[in-house]
């Protein structure tokens, strides 16, 4: 987690760039969002019992350039943490990470987009953070192509970055709103050794009566077999939406990521296990405010016994973010995981309270879990969180105070507090 010298320099360069770049254009739009978080709780450390832990976090997001229109823009998001108590709870007194920082050029014609820098790539088989270049463009009405290449961020902690590379892309064909089919490819090298090589196919098929089918399959070239198949049908009937689905995973091919393999998944790659999961999600939109939902999912394995989960939820939401709801679910996995649990959750978030109270919003969350088999001598968990906030400076600044209490197998009686100050500068 410690920020290396090279990264510090990179982050500094990106911040400088983000400041300098808008100066080149008077029309530049700039949005800066800052979340400053202070937490306080107690933990046993190697040198002290019930030591106060006082970390402070800063999450900084900068977007500059042509944000509301096509053109050139710059985007940065990262976080840093300082340990103000410095009592050995954290391995390092400071930590941080640049989550993304890239220059982007977009043009309206063909939705062409070029991104250079640290970014997240989500293209078929790729779900990776890279330091590199990504290009994408429509090719006429029927095709879209995206390509990316660079170094994978996920490997920067394994023997440096020399010899690490990632590249791939996705080519999609679509026909209006009838269907879209995409093929994707990704290859990752770790220290000059092929770690992952995957092909993928994704599919959207829009059928009569508003039925639609979505699917995704991934093939592991390194192990030479299919890693995953996931297919879902969406069936809208009046105010109901039914989503039956089917998934199949081969552990050797899904978790087999060669030189990238990490615990606890490394062992699964050598397990001769296959998982088939199927189930249905159902949503009933009672009216504009009320939604009732239910889920049932069944897991079948080649080696282990089966497992299943069921849940129901009911939510009420208004035009703003105000939402109240509850969920109850049960996971039966006694033969697979050696335990079952039932989870109950009640939650609420109320906006626009300033007319009645001094605060602007209030939140609450209650989770209770019951375990069939005790975990460290406890057969249940209790978690409660409460929060309240007030906005200032025409809503540019919000101050939130929240706290949570937990009584569970890992913590007897744990109380934690958090103060969050969020500030947004927006010159648009």
């Amino acid at each position, binding site marked *: 987690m410690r920020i290396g010298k090279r990264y510090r320099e990179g982050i500094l360069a990106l911040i400088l760039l983000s400041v300098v770049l808008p100066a080149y254009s008077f029309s530049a739009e700039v949005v800066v969002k800052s979340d400053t978080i202070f937490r306080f709780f107690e933990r046993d450390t190697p040198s002290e019992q019930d030591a106060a832990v006082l970390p402070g*976090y800063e999450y900084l*997001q900068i977007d500059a350039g042509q944000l509301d*229109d096509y053109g050139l823009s710059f985007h940065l*998001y990262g*976080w840093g943490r300082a340990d103000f108590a410095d009592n050995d709870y954290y391995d390092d007194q400071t930590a941080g990470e640049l*989550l993304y920082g890239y220059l982007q050029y*977009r043009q*309206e014609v063909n*939705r*062409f*987009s070029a991104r250079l820098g640290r970014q*997240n790539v989500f293209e078929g088989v790729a779900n990776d953070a890279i330091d590199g270049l990504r290009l994408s*463009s429509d*090719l*006429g009405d029927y095709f879209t*192509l995206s*390509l990316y*290449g660079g170094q994978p*961020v*996920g*490997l920067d902690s394994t023997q440096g970055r020399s010899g690490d590379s990632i*590249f791939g892309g996705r080519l999609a064909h679509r026909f*209006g*709103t009838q269907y*879209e089919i995409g093929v994707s490819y990704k*290859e990752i090298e770790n220290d000059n050794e092929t770690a992952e090589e995957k092909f993928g196919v*994704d599919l959207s098929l*829009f059928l009569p009566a508003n039925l*639609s089918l979505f699917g*995704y399959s991934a093939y592991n070239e390194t192990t030479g077999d299919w890693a*995953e198949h996931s297919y879902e049908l969406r069936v*809208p009937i009046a105010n109901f939406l039914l989503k039956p689905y089917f998934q199949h995973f081969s*552990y050797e091919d899904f*978790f087999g990521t060669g030189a*990238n393999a*990490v*615990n*606890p*998944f490394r062992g699964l790659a050598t397990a001769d296990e296959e998982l088939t999961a199927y189930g249905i*999600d159902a949503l009933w939109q009672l009216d504009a405010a009320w939604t009732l939902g239910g889920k049932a999912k069944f897991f079948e394995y080649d080696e282990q016994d089966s497992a299943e989960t069921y849940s129901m*939820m009911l939510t009420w939401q208004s035009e703003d*973010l105000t939402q109240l709801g509850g969920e109850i679910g049960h996971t039966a996995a006694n033969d*697979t*995981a*050696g335990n079952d649990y039932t989870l109950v*959750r009640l939650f609420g*978030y109320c906006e626009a309270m300033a007319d009645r109270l001094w605060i602007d919003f209030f*939140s609450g*969350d209650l*989770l209770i*879990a019951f375990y069939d088999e005790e*975990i460290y001598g406890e057969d249940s*968990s209790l*978690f409660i*969180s409460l*929060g309240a906030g007030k906005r200032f400076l025409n809503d540019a600044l919000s101050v*939130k105070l*929240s706290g949570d209490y937990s009584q569970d197998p890992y913590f007897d009686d744990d109380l934690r507090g*958090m103060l*969050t100050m969020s500030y947004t500068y927006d010159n648009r």
Partner: protein
Amino acid sequence: MANKSLLTTLTLLAVLLLVAACAGLQSRYTLPARHPSAAELTVSPKVCTDCHERGQELAYERYVHTADFGKSHRPEATQGEAVCAMCHQTSFCNDCHATRVELKPSLKNQSETYRSSPHRGDYLSRHRIDGRVDPTSCFRCHGNPKSAQTCARCHG
């Protein structure tokens, strides 16, 4: 190895040239760079079909933010990133999908209880069961050396 790298580079260059050549094939429909916000519309933009009828350009119904959209938007994000980007910066996705962070999503945005943040409450206990039932769901976010650092304290 050197030959493979050269072949890869040449392939990439060839594809880039193809992209450049095909860029002349202009598509008839382009998305706007940004969707008007709720404040600008005075209505919530979460239900696309309230304003948009299904046309030839986009299957709007698939992007409707139903109560479980937070847990089921994988197909939309895979195939329609440009649609998501009209309203959301990547940081919004990172609120849940960033694994190179210390604070778990439900803690960093603790008071935003209306969002489907993963790992709410005492997930340390529940993950012992969920992880055995379906380890593929853990792997999607924690499957590389950097993102598995949160697992490494106990799992080595």
